[in-house]
């Protein structure tokens, strides 16, 4: 996996804070959205997904919000931990191409300080 993105947007938070990572998508035909976490030297790891017929979905410590009007997606991480430090990507897929061809954003690096 990718190790360092020198020009990635970076979000720095303290351990225990809540984190919000944002993503703007471009294709209004996208029906399916996923958030991935990528640690240094590893491939992307699925966190949570949401279909376009929903505007909010919750998982364990994570919440994804979808605003189709402004084509915006956000990932909220509650009580952020040092182990959450990674690069986070949103990915989108239009239903008319199937969910196989994921289109990834450029990513946001999350740095969590103890």
């Amino acid at each position, binding site marked *: *996996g*990718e190790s*360092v*993105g*020198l*020009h*990635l947007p970076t979000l720095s938070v303290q351990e225990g804070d809540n984190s919000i990572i944002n993503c703007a998508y471009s294709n209004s035909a996208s029906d399916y959205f996923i958030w991935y976490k990528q640690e240094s*030297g*590893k*491939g*992307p*790891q*699925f966190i949570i*997904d949401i279909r376009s017929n929903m505007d909010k979905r919750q998982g364990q410590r994570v919440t994804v919000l979808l605003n189709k009007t402004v084509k915006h997606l956000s990932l909220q991480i509650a009580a952020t931990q040092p182990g959450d430090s990674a690069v986070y*990507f949103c*990915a989108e897929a239009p239903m008319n*191409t*199937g*969910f*196989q*061809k*994921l*289109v*990834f*954003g*450029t*990513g946001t690096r999350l740095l969590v300080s103890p």
Partner: protein
Amino acid sequence: GAGVSQTPSNKVTEKGKYVELRCDPISGHTALYWYRQSLGQGPEFLIYFQGTGAADDSGLPNDRFFAVRPEGSVSTLKIQRTERGDSAVYLCASSLTLNNEQFFGPGTRLTVL
């Protein structure tokens, strides 16, 4: 069980050479995907297989790139006449069937000198 594995983890080659990158998907997964990730970017779709056939190869950048999956399990991504711009991490993913969660391997870092 074991996740997606990719070999080699790193490959350094010279411009103009031929390389093969291997992906072993999770056992029983029928769908397999290849992505390319350049430094500081998100993965870009290259090709995916359902079983042995390439269902969509629209992401392959040019005819120097080719991928096979002859027995519906292991896949090989082949790059001919490598160029410096091919340097990237090549990621493989598999899913149980189409439209299921994609599980990614650790990638092969290709460096073309």
